[in-house]
């Protein structure tokens, strides 16, 4: 995270001794809750510990993509163009988190926007595109990510994007276009109507501020190295930012490595999660820094204890929640009904180890 470069919208108020004292007094009045738990009833955006935002505007971009403009809560520390933010929404009552690139340019009103493309079978993206409404409260985390421009801007830049990979690049362009002299944007999308931000990009191209090379994979096929060579002959001289599907990024990384210029390449990938229920997997206890092979038929708690790991435990039948541990990342299967629980990196989904078996690799906080 690069705090020095954040586009700050609202500086946090300086805390003082008096503030701390006032907080202690207020806390003595509200214990065991915190004063903010009561403030939350009336203004959830004021919370200093739980960052939240309110949806202020929804803009349709394509048939299956839309931009969500969010007014962040008081604690928002701003972002560096190109970074993403993690957003949490309650879907069927369950809080689910995903990361989306910030696409908004400079704004006076302190709002930020993310652009979401609905993925087939993607619960969160579909919800954000189809069910979100203006005025809704969303959970947020501070912006993060390394897919940003350096302080000293390179003279020549290549932006290589595919599908929704355009989103962080759009965030960068909207902020930095006036400071960039020579930008080539090579963008692939299935069809012309699938290109997110098409009008804005084509206008930038018309004005000669970027060179837009738009490809449509339904007619042109997937981008390969020969075509890259033909479309952007001077790519070796350009510092490159690439974001898109895993296959495209692999091709690019291999190619840059083979030609000896990987230091000029920056990539951003949206990680997929694969589920293998019933097969078991490796459980990694982050605090102990210990790996344990677990089968998929018995609870993680039993297997952990057999291996001599001191784990919290209780009823051992899934009712008391005495054994709950946060799962940072990975997949487990509820032995009672086969239900799969998946955590994206950093989620910290709390799982009961006494009735869950590993279903692939999972990282548990212990």
């Amino acid at each position: 995270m690069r705090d020095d470069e954040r586009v700050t919208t609202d500086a946090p108020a300086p805390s003082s001794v008096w503030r701390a004292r006032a907080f202690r007094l207020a806390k003595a009045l509200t214990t065991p809750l915190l004063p903010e738990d009561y403030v939350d009833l009336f203004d959830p955006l004021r919370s200093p510990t739980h960052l939240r935002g309110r949806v202020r505007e929804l803009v349709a971009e394509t048939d299956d993509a839309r931009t969500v403009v969010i007014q962040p809560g008081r604690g928002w520390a701003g972002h560096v163009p190109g970074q993403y933010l993690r957003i949490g929404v309650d879907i069927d009552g369950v809080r689910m988190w995903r990361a989306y690139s910030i696409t908004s340019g400079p704004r006076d009103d302190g709002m930020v926007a993310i652009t979401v493309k609905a993925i087939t079978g993607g619960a969160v993206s579909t919800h954000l595109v189809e069910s979100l409404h203006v005025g809704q409260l969303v959970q947020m985390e501070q912006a993060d990510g390394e897919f940003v421009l350096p302080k000293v801007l390179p003279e020549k830049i290549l932006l290589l994007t595919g599908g929704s990979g355009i989103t962080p690049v759009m965030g960068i362009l909207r902020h930095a276009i006036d400071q960039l002299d020579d930008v080539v944007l090579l963008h692939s999308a299935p069809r012309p109507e699938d290109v997110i931000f098409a009008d804005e990009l084509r206008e930038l191209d018309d004005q000669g501020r970027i060179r837009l090379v738009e490809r449509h994979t339904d007619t042109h096929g997937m981008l390969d190295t020969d075509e890259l060579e033909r479309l952007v002959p001077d790519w070796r001289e350009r510092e490159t930012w690439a974001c898109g599907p895993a296959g495209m990024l692999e091709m690019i990384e291999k190619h840059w490595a083979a030609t000896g210029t990987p230091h000029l390449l920056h990539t951003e990938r949206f990680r997929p999660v694969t589920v293998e229920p019933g097969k078991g997997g490796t459980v990694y206890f982050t605090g102990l820094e210990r790996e344990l092979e677990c089968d998929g038929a018995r609870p993680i708690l039993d297997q952990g204890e057999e291996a001599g790991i001191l784990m919290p435990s209780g009823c051992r039948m899934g009712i008391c929640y005495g054994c709950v541990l946060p799962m940072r990342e990975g997949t487990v299967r509820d032995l009672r009904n086969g239900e799969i629980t998946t955590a994206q990196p950093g989620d910290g989904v709390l799982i009961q180890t006494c009735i869950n078996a590993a279903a692939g690799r999972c990282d548990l906080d212990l």
Partner: protein
Amino acid sequence: MTALQKKDVNPVAHLTPQDIESLGKELDAVRQSVLDTRGARDAKYIRTMIDVQRKTELASRALLLFSRWKPAFVVGTVGLTVSKILENMEIGHNVMHGQWDWMRDPKIHSTTYEWDNASPASLWKHSHNELHHTFTNVLGRDNDLGYGIMRVDEDQPWVPFYLGQPAWNFINACFFEYGIAAYDLELGKYFKGRKDKARFKADGKKVLNKIGQQMTKDYVMHPALAALTGSWKQTLFANYLANLGRNLWTHSVIMCGHFPEGVETFTKTSIAGESRGDWYLRQMLGSANIKGSKAMHIATGNLSYQIEHHLFPDLPSNRYQEIAPQIEDICRRYGLPYVTGSLPHQVGSAWLKVIRLSLPNHLAKKLKFSRGRKPVQPTALPSRTAPQTAAA
């Protein structure tokens, strides 16, 4: 189940292992049907409950700032009592059970929630969720049975100390939250030298801390704030009344859960090798419901559906009333008692049992206390009906 077999009427004698297994399967299916439909409606229920409780508390506390004025005192005290009851029962108890963990909201989660009660959440979760719910009504394992100070079953040997148990029970009711804190601390076990000293010291510190914070809030901070309007005395008294009211209410509700006549107790040896069906059976026989209005159910934290709660302690509390007809039907078909009654009836029944058991068995028999247990005839036992349906 040896403890049951000693009884004049053994409520499970007619069940074959096959019946118990199919009982377990039926109850698993009920549980699954709730899990399959758990969603936004349930989330809205608990969030609304929390919203109503906190706003009631805020409004009542604000009113109490002017409690020199009598109507403000009365309304504020009633409001604070209601909000404290809601917080402990429908919110605190159920959140700490993990009923809402599936929402993945860190503010409504069993691992983070701390309730407005003398007993710290961590200790309560151990003694309540692990011990009481796993070993429900098992003599010597379930501290909720008599809290270690009362005789709750004819099988327990009588000593003269128990003559005073109606009084002990009433005193416990008045100071109930401290009673809970004391037995979550396993005070009795410590004095018998069966609890680790270091652990007891650490736990004791937690309890004292919590009590300190709770007392400071109710009896120092809020009265001090009300001193600005000259209402400190009234506010102090109102806080005391609200805590007393909640103590008496929660004690009554909890007595109704496992004490009324017709509820069974079990011996330590009877639960060895219990199957899932056996465990369900013990939960059903060891619990009793309360009939009443919707407001009453909410005020009990839906513990008025104690049987449903004990079968499925981690299902959202708003669902218990929805599955209650199914559970009652299962009880009827399997010939099991589904103990229920109005609040006054159940409270009275529990108190009568406390009084009866304060006397030695031979004396209680002479006084002809009604045991209130009637055998229930099964209407459709799988072991008896299965061959017929197969033939048909």
